């Protein structure tokens, strides 16, 4: 049986910020593939290019050279609108700082991706809230939640439109150990249930333990895989 087509493929991807003498290479010649349903952890020191790589894989940014194929689409060939539609459909994001909209309730925060896509919500938000164990807080606002709870809302928001890829940037970075392990276990389980691939940047070995594969980045280049 042939191997399934990769969900994301990065081919000799490089990313430069600035120009001339002030140019800084955040990524250099990175190539990798993420299979559907795979859980990949990116590790490395701060500033090694993890977030830059995540942004490229998640179609939030474009490489300076090389190319990224997401669901077979070359992100460099897409205009801003097409990139947005691709991202909207195929990618869910989880951030270290949660980034919930402070003016929306838990339910509404979870529903935002559906709203932007003009997709129906129905009972999805309560169901997602139940899955992240926040049924009781559906009508609460972000400032009424703990850090762990906020991150679980962010998780529900990232998953509600059933994306093929979840991009998680230090999702446990702002959490205590207990909350962190709860959130990471939830992320792994829900992604597996939905068949979504996860690419997660983390400093935490404990978090990386849930990954199928771990890649190490150093100064913008992949140095090892485990």
């Amino acid at each position: 049986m042939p191997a399934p087509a990769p969900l994301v493929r990065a081919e000799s991807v490089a990313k430069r910020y600035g120009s001339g003498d002030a140019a800084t290479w955040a990524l250099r010649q990175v190539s990798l593939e993420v299979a559907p349903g795979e859980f990949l952890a990116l590790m490395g020191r701060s500033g090694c290019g993890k977030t830059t790589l995540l942004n490229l894989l998640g179609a939030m940014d474009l490489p300076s050279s090389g190319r990224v194929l997401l669901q077979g689409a070359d992100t460099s060939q897409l205009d801003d609108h097409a990139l947005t539609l691709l991202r909207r459909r195929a990618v869910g994001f989880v951030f270290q700082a949660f980034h919930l909209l402070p003016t929306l309730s838990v339910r509404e925060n979870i529903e935002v991706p559906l709203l932007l896509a003009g997709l129906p919500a129905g009972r999805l938000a309560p169901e997602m809230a139940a899955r992240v164990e926040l049924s009781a807080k559906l009508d609460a606002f972000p400032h009424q939640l703990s850090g762990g709870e906020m991150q679980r809302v962010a998780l529900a928001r990232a998953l509600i439109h059933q994306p093929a890829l979840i991009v998680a940037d230090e999702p446990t970075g702002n959490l205590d150990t207990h909350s962190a392990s709860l959130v990471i276990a939830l992320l792994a389980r829900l992604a597996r249930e939905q068949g979504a691939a996860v690419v997660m940047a983390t400093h935490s070995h404990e978090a990386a333990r849930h990954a199928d594969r771990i890649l190490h980045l150093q100064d913008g280049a992949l140095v090892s895989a485990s």
Partner: protein
Amino acid sequence: MFFRALIWRPLRNDWGRTLLSLLAIALGVAVVIALRVANRGAIASFQRTTSALAGDADLLVSGPQPLPAALLPRLFPLNSQAEFFPYLDRRAYDPRARDTLHLLGLDLLASTIAPAGKTPLPATGHPAILLAAAYAAAHGLKLGDPLTLSIGGEPHTFQIAALLPASPLAPPDLALLDLPDALAAFEPNAPPTRGGRGPRRPAAKRSADLGPWGPQVGASMPPRAVPAGRLTSGTRAGGALGPAPITFDGLRVRLAPGANPQALSVALRPLVPAADTIAPPRARLQQDTQMLAAFRANLQALAYVSLLVGIFLIYNTVSISVVRRRTAIATLRALGATRAALLRLFLLEGAVLSLLGGALGLLFGWLLAASAMALVQRTINNLYAASAPAPATLVPADALWALGLALGAGLFAALGPARAASRTAPAQALRPGTAESEVRTRALSSALVAAALALAAVLCAYLPEPGAAAGGISVPWFGFASALLAVLAAAALAPPLLALLLPRLRRALWRQRGDALRANRRPLPASRRHSGAGLPGIEARTPSDHRERPTQKVASHLRRALGLLGMAAGSLAGALRRSAVLIAALATAIAVTFGVAIMVGSFRQTVTTWIGQQLQGDVFVRAADWDRTRPAPLAPALLAAVAATPGLAQLEASHSQAWSFRGQPTFLNTRWSLTPQAPRPEYQFLQGGPGPVLVSEPFARRFRLWPGDAFTLAGPKQTLRLTVAGVFYDYTSDRGLLVLDRPTFARAFGPPTITELGLVAAPGVTPSALRRRLERRLPHASSLAINDNASLRRQALAVFDQTFRITYALEFITLIVAILGVGNTLLAVVLERAPEFALLRFLGATRHQLGGLLLAESGLAATLALALGAPLGAVLSLILVRVINVQSFGWTIQFHPPYAFLAAAAALVWLATLLAGWLPAQAAQRQASASTLEAE
């Protein structure tokens, strides 16, 4: 250092927003300054008129109607104390230039006038006129030209003998006549005063007595005839006097060295009983100033509304600064900055913004002043008395006033946010939403404050105007206070109302969106799902799913629109403090626009109805130089010509004149029929009914005389004890009108002259046909104003609209200030919420959707402001109509809201506010990027 880091640099970096703030403040200040300069110009124009008349006189003696020359012998005992110079003070119409001249009849021989070195003009037989050089230049006239003026409906030709130089004390529409010539022109019924009956005197050197307006291009006066028995000017009273019918408008009194003006005034009073003013020229100016007090106060109050809206905006700008710099404030507090230091810092921001805005406002004010001056002058000419505009100049006090006003407003507005900044608890400040939750908890107290303010507004509306002595023109301070309190009550009500409304609106929109979703759900086949292990109900999509059916496409758009509106409601609710101030500011501008529009619209409709009832005749005739204060009587020959016009069925005569009642200027009128069944005015009575003594509503309110009340009327012939029979609606003057039947008038004042004629056309003759016949048949028709009913109505409404043009201009500027505020606030929102917009981009929002979100916010803000502003506007219109107007002018206005205008204004404001959100929406689309979120 803190100032530079926390205030100056952010202001400089957000220069676009800073500029918008400055512009909003500047416009508010500019309007106040422009009105201040215009009002001063209006006073200056009266001052110039008074100065032109007074010259070097120490006292002016004048009455509401001309003083008989017969009184002059009585002044003989005062010869040692003063010289008395009679004068005529009238207006004349120049039919060629279609302009009006202010004519002063003075004894030009009272002192020598010296047009040195000029050749005497050839005598043409026409009397000499000394004309303002500005007027001559404007109308292409030069020295020696003949000038034909319409006086009392008759043409009179003069020869321009000298041009009066431009002078800050002489109006540009001034013309001087020698007194005998003026008498001959203005008093046609008086015995002939020239034509060889008096000795001809050679031209004399003259200049000194003309004081401020000595001739610029001088020429010797042509020889003139001295009227038989004229009062030789400058002679002591008791000199040769002419026949009794000669009258003057007043006396200029020049005191002898060492004479006491007060003592002379006291001595003059019993000798000149017909005079109501015996005072220095400045007292006459005070009277004029008093007459304009209510009008000026109303305009100034409207101007201050712009500044009030500006205060809201300074509050918002500083509030946004505080919110945006919460982290920096918390850091500074953690590092040891005191509360007082932070308070000072943000007060300083308010001060800097307001001072810069004030300086800019001063410049704008200077630019606006000339236009404001023209509009104000036109209104004063329509409502009070004609006077030539004085130049609008800015003085150093204006600069101080502008900067002081701006600084005061800025500090007052910045106080609230600065206190909030100083009370920031470092730990709390780092948690989002804290500040807004504080606002929510204060909603109840804010509602209570709103209720208290509303109650105070009602109380003020019912308080009588302060210091309104019977007959005096009052400034409705309590009315203004009531309006201000109503605005503040609405502003205080905004936060609790929005706290109540916005979350519900957000939920409702979100729910509606859900309903729209359910109605249009199209389950996807399992094969098209992204993952076989998907969540129940999830409908993941592939690109092919975007080929939706049209109904689904509509539903999809609807879902997005409702969702964006819901998010917009959430955003407004989330930043309640800022939203409340923004919406309150816009609502205030809308309310003032609506309130004034309802007042003006109601007033216009009331006046339209009233004119229809008043104008019973078909055609009206009066002199082209007709002036409300001194209407020229029509010549008897004219009356005969009018009466003989074919097609005339009925004729009514009317006499109007200015009068002083209880020391206050008012007007008198009497009408009588010249043919059987002549048209009678159908007065609409506020109280009482027809009778020999009627008073207008402003008269009744000013002098507190209502039906059944008796009063004493001291006429030159006889003092009468009269009783008011009825009070009728009247909108011609706020000074009040006393209408007497002809016999009563004659007993007090003597036989009335005819100043106006009202004609009814015979059956089959249209009013316009009758007018045309009159124009053809009457001698000197160009010196007459002949109007048919329809054109007079049109003219009256044109004057009405012209009068309120300044009001519309002020409203417009207030709205501009508020809309600038919306743009400014939304621009700040974009900067403040950059991470949120970046997040939405991560979550799949297109750039257009981000722009749409901003537009949804501005649209929602406009809708809420209209919802709050429209009822407040209705309340303000009630205060304007029922309190301020009645107290200022004594007019009852029937409510006739101009619904179409209001709807159009609402739509315009809504669209303009939406447009104000367009630029920020563009900015939001540009700036949202991954790096913004990373930076957070």
